[in-house]
């Protein structure tokens, strides 16, 4: 595996990148343990958060249960309930924070499917919540429409508009294991996961915005026999790829919103001090493991704010020395602190 950075010449994977990818990969070894928080301090601005997320993503690809397919029908039912009971009756410009309706994002009631790329179907008010039976309207032209009662198996092909498809059976959008496997020797990638989305891993972008987060990742280009791939594409954040599955959710710290209505992610990788502090205070991430990546060349006030936050956690957390000592040798210039919640 070769890489280039800022259009420089191609080189073998550098120790600092290898370490960060392996750090992300090794994070979820003990899935059922108490919550952990890590702070990774870098000597300069870098794509470290993206690399850690990439490692964690490869790890998730090895778990057969790491997909959004299970429970998708229930998710569509919840979405239908939100649309029919709340959003369709709301006459305000959508701002869930101000309205305090309990939802994080507006439900438009429209679903999409890779099987019908140019169409949407609309949640029907005939949906039976007590019977757990979703119904939608499929239009064919202006006049004709059909009320569809899908089986759960068929519903997997439909997903909420503006969100990634939960399953992708087209040949052009599935992930290639040849790209991900070389990052971790011996990673046993579960083949079914390569065409299934997953929302259990989240990257919280930079405070400067999603464009800045994507740009820093796009500067790292990996190449092997399978082709050349930017880190931004490898992460499969929904807005960063043209189509296909998405196995990393994106949290925008400026708007405080995720790119999808999803269950609580098991891990959030925060890029930058402001993002780290924002995620740390977000109620929806209080159960998620948190890995913050900061650079030491920010203003002193910002570093002190992060330090104060880490100190405040010491009331309930201990240093996770077991994990710290189990890490591969940390490259000179990177420092890491890991906290584990007391049980």
């Amino acid at each position, binding site marked *: 595996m070769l890489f280039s*950075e800022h259009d420089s010449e191609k080189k073998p994977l550098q*120790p*600092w990148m290898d370490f960060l990818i392996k750090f992300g990969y090794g994070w979820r070894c003990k899935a059922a343990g108490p919550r952990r928080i890590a702070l990774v301090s870098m*000597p*300069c601005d*870098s794509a*470290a958060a993206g690399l850690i997320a990439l490692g964690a993503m490869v790890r998730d690809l090895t778990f057969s249960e790491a997909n959004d397919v299970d429970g998708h029908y229930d998710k569509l039912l919840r979405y239908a309930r939100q649309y029919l009971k709340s959003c369709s009756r709301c006459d305000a410009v959508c701002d869930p924070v101000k309205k305090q309706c309990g939802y994080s994002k507006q439900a438009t009631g429209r679903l999409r499917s890779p099987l019908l790329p140019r169409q949407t179907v609309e949640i029907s008010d005939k949906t039976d919540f007590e019977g757990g039976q979703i119904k939608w309207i499929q239009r064919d032209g202006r006049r004709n429409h059909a009320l569809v009662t899908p089986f759960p198996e068929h519903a997997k092909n439909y997903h909420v508009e503006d969100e990634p498809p939960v399953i992708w059976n087209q040949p052009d959008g599935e992930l290639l294991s040849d790209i991900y496997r070389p990052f971790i020797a011996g990673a046993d990638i579960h083949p079914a996961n390569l065409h299934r989305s997953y929302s259990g891993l989240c990257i919280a972008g930079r405070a400067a915005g999603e464009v800045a987060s994507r740009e820093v990742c796009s500067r790292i280009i990996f190449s092997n026999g399978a082709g050349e791939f930017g880190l931004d594409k490898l992460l499969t954040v929904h807005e960063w790829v043209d189509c296909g599955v998405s196995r990393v959710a994106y949290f925008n710290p400026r708007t405080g919103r995720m790119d999808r209505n999803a269950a609580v992610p098991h891990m959030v990788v925060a890029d930058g001090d402001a993002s780290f502090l924002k995620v740390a205070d977000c109620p929806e991430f209080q159960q998620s493991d948190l890995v913050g990546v900061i650079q030491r060349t920010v203003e*002193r006030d910002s570093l002190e704010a992060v330090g104060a936050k880490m100190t405040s956690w010491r009331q309930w957390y201990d240093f996770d020395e077991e994990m710290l000592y189990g890490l591969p040798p940390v490259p000179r*210039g990177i420092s890491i602190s890991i906290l584990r919640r007391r049980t």
Partner: protein
Amino acid sequence: MSATTTQIFDFLSGHPEYSMERIEIATPGFSMLRRGLRAVILRLREEAAGHEGNELAYRLRASLFEWLTVPVPFDGAIFEAVKILGDQELVGRKWGTDVRAAYVMVCDGAQAVQQEENPARIQLRDVIRELRSRNRTFKIYSHRRARPHFSSLFVAPGEPALLESDFLSSVREYREAETFDTLLKMGPL
């Protein structure tokens, strides 16, 4: 363009140790000036010295801080700066004989330092020449307004002048700088 992450890690792995060299400089004239000025400032910062005294103490303190952290030439400008207190007789009548005695020491010191070049300038010039001769890259950490004083160290023909890129004045400039071997800083650590 700033250094890439890989360049920075390569640089760090190539420099497993770092050292800090501290050069202390002393000159009798400046010691006299500094001691006297400290005594005046301490006295004028007291509440009893009034608003005018406090204001003067603040200005003298700013001047002293500049002389300690910037390679200023020891010329008439120093004497001008301390003369803001006015006539020695007047100082004695306004703030007492102890302030007057300290003020006399300040004026003597300000005149004494003009007899020779600021030793900090000589030292900095030597250090930079040595770094250049060894092809060591360096940056000077200074306030933006202090740059002309550093630049004035190399005005002789045939000697390369200091460039704007040789200075660091903010975290942002540090962030965007290429890697370098030595950081020069004048003043307290």
